[in-house]
């Protein structure tokens, strides 16, 4: 005879507790379905339902209050072998705490069963009501709390549960249990019980207490199955940058490029940094922009150095390339007396001793102004060979356009190279 999921350990519940009956029903249903206990992983919540672990012959995981459904989702996704049965068990308190998890589990439609044993109270902490306590249940002692209970079966159904149903302790619910434990996808079974310690003392019929009747709902959905695919090494996704030329730079050079969102400021920073590597230097680059990355300023900080770079911050930059008012407003407090400013002429910066002001927007357009300004500066300063910048640009997906901007800004004719 096949072992049942329930062992012979004495159940720890109060006399008359519905949990005892619910556990027997679950065990009977699994036995009738022919499920091997070691193919079952039971995930239990906190509260009286969470006392179930020692009674079970299957794998058990006893977690946190309200988290049984979400932990069971993790178990489902982690199981690589098919044919396992994941059952999460929680009370009405746990279902209230973890309501979002319950809805997520239904939406994801993983192959699992969530049993909510609704005895209307938090039984371990003194009988407080939960979100699943019905108005009829609350009326005798808490008439002021007329808030209706959640219909979790309806909620689970609307979130996409393959099967959801409400069963009442006392009736024959074995078929509901079997369907809840065998339907592929997410199944929710709410079992309405009455806590003998804190429930109403005289209940003739549980159906009179519940706000809702028996409900059986189904969604025709295929269970969600996880794909596992090992990706290629991330190191292979970075292109090797060979040193192809030399740069005369022999100190640390700190550059800030400032503009607006959408003006390819970060790309310009990347180009400068990779051009420096092409010329045998070390470089770093970091971006700064508002959380709403589609608007406001965009700032790139680039450091070039003959030596290896440790500290990657910039206090007072050697060079600032500024092409928009957003950018100027963001970085103007960092301009030092010796900072070289390369600015778009429309910004109207005039009172700085070390200023190059040109119509870079005309040369490169809004998305190429920073690159035009950078190319112009490199040509005048000779700090990096223009070939290094062109080589870096040619690696970019918009390489042809970038090289054309560099040509225009420097007045040098080069051959356009594209990837």
């Amino acid at each position: 005879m096949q072992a049942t999921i329930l062992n012979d350990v004495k159940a720890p519940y109060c006399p008359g507790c519905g949990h005892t009956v619910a556990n027997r029903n679950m065990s009977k249903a699994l036995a009738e379905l022919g499920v091997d206990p070691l193919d079952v992983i039971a995930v239990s919540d906190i509260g009286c339902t969470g006392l179930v672990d020692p009674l079970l012959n299957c794998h058990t995981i006893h977690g946190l209050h309200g988290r049984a459904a979400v932990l069971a989702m993790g178990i489902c996704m982690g199981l690589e072998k098919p044919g396992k049965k994941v059952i999460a068990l929680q009370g009405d308190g746990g279902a209230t705490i973890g309501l979002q998890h319950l809805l997520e589990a239904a939406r994801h439609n993983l192959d699992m069963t969530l049993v909510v044993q609704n005895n209307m109270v938090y039984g371990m902490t003194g009988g407080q009501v939960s979100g699943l306590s019905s108005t009829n249940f609350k009326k005798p002692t808490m008439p002021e709390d007329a808030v209706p209970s959640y219909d979790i079966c309806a909620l689970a159904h609307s979130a996409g549960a393959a099967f959801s149903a409400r069963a009442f302790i006392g009736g024959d619910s074995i078929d509901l249990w079997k369907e809840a434990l065998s339907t592929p996808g997410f199944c929710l079974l709410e079992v309405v019980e009455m806590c003998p310690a804190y429930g109403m003392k005289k209940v003739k019929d549980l159906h009179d207490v519940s706000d809702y009747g028996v409900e059986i709902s189904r969604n025709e959905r295929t269970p969600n199955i996880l794909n596992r695919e090992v990706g290629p090494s991330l190191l292979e996704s970075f292109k090797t940058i060979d040193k192809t030329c030399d740069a005369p730079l022999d100190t640390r050079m700190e550059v800030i490029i400032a503009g607006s969102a959408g003006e390819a400021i970060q790309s310009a920073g990347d180009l400068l940094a990779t051009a420096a590597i092409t010329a045998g230097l070390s470089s770093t680059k970091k971006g700064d922009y508002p959380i709403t990355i589609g608007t406001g300023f965009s700032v790139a900080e680039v450091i070039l150095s003959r030596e290896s770079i440790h500290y990657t911050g910039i206090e007072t930059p050697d060079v600032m390339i500024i092409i928009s008012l957003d950018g100027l407003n963001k970085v103007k407090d960092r301009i030092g007396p010796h900072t070289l400013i390369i600015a778009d002429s429309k910004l109207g910066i005039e009172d700085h001793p070390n200023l190059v002001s040109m119509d870079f927007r005309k040369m490169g357009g809004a998305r190429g102004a920073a690159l035009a300004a950078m190319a112009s500066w490199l040509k005048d300063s000779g700090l990096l060979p223009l070939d290094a910048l062109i080589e870096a640009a040619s690696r970019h997906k918009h390489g042809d356009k970038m090289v054309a901007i560099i040509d225009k800004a420097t007045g040098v004719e080069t051959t356009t190279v594209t990837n």
Partner: protein
Amino acid sequence: MAESDRNMVFLDGSRLIIEAMARAGAGAYIGYPITPVNWLFDGAKSRIPVTLEAPDEITALQWSAGFSATGTFPVTASAFPGFALMIESLNMSFMMELPMVVILAQRLGPSTGSATTGAQGDLLLLRGCISGGYPLPVLCPSNMMDCWNMAAAAVKTAINLRTPVILLTSKEMIMTNQNMDISGLPEVPLVKRELYDRKDLYKPYSVNGNMVPDFLPAGNENHQVRFNASTHDATGATQKNSVEALGNTARLKNKMEDRLEEYTFYDHDDGDGETVILTYGISAEAARDAIRSIRSSGEKVSLLVMKTMLPVPPRIFDILDRYQNILIVEENLSGLLRELLFGQQKNDRIHRINKIGNMITPGEIIEGVEQCKQPY
């Protein structure tokens, strides 16, 4: 190294961390997209076999626990606001002894603070986040090479000690691009789990000589497995406060401390002299520049960069005892490392550099070293 053997690329710490963890055995990455861990998620998506976006950080940790309990090594990442939500589930995973790595990228707080500003403000949170003060291993990369090495070490430590491990980093470390010769990266071997393979009764929390229980995944066909977040005995059954169960709980502390040598990492650059700069994480790079500058002017100074932050390796104190002055450099106002190592009591040997909003600069450290020489 010959020029032709080099492989110079321009990359970021996030990708190094993910690649090293993938090689060490990470099989799932579960993320909630909080700044500044965005690039970790991007890297994981194209590398780790399963990458999932969780609806919130409680879910991220619970899913991680599910993967771990069934034998897949999970990684997740967050910043303080999300990490705060993870703490209950982190305690659960600690108690269940589920290996995983949580990457905590520090950003300026309190609360949501500034999402895109770096910080070093979460060290003491980690020291106390397991109820009872139980030690949670915390490793902290101090540069790009460490992003690789500490990420691999975090996975290895988590598996070998059956525990969650925190990789403590910051926005500046994982969202800055740098050139790096990746031909010099050491190999990261796959960390193999030793599974229980005997026929006699499996007790999920029974230990052999190494303080760590043998692992078997939930769902295996040979032995019943129990994981339990409540106080439990060797079988995994809940017990209130039996001698066996309390012994099992005490073991969670002892295993971390007894095997600390296996995951003790630091850089000690002994330059003689009376002053040692003590730092970690992103501030270490400024300290390295400061050391270079100070020594070029003929002054003597030493540097100690901690990489195993928690539990504090005893060797850290042995090293610090050799110096008259200890200058502790960290990007927060409260002096978290100072308090972790030396408490709050006044101590004339200890000097601090603290700041928020921007990285501490080499210049500020040089000035701090200078001030250590002043008479009290």
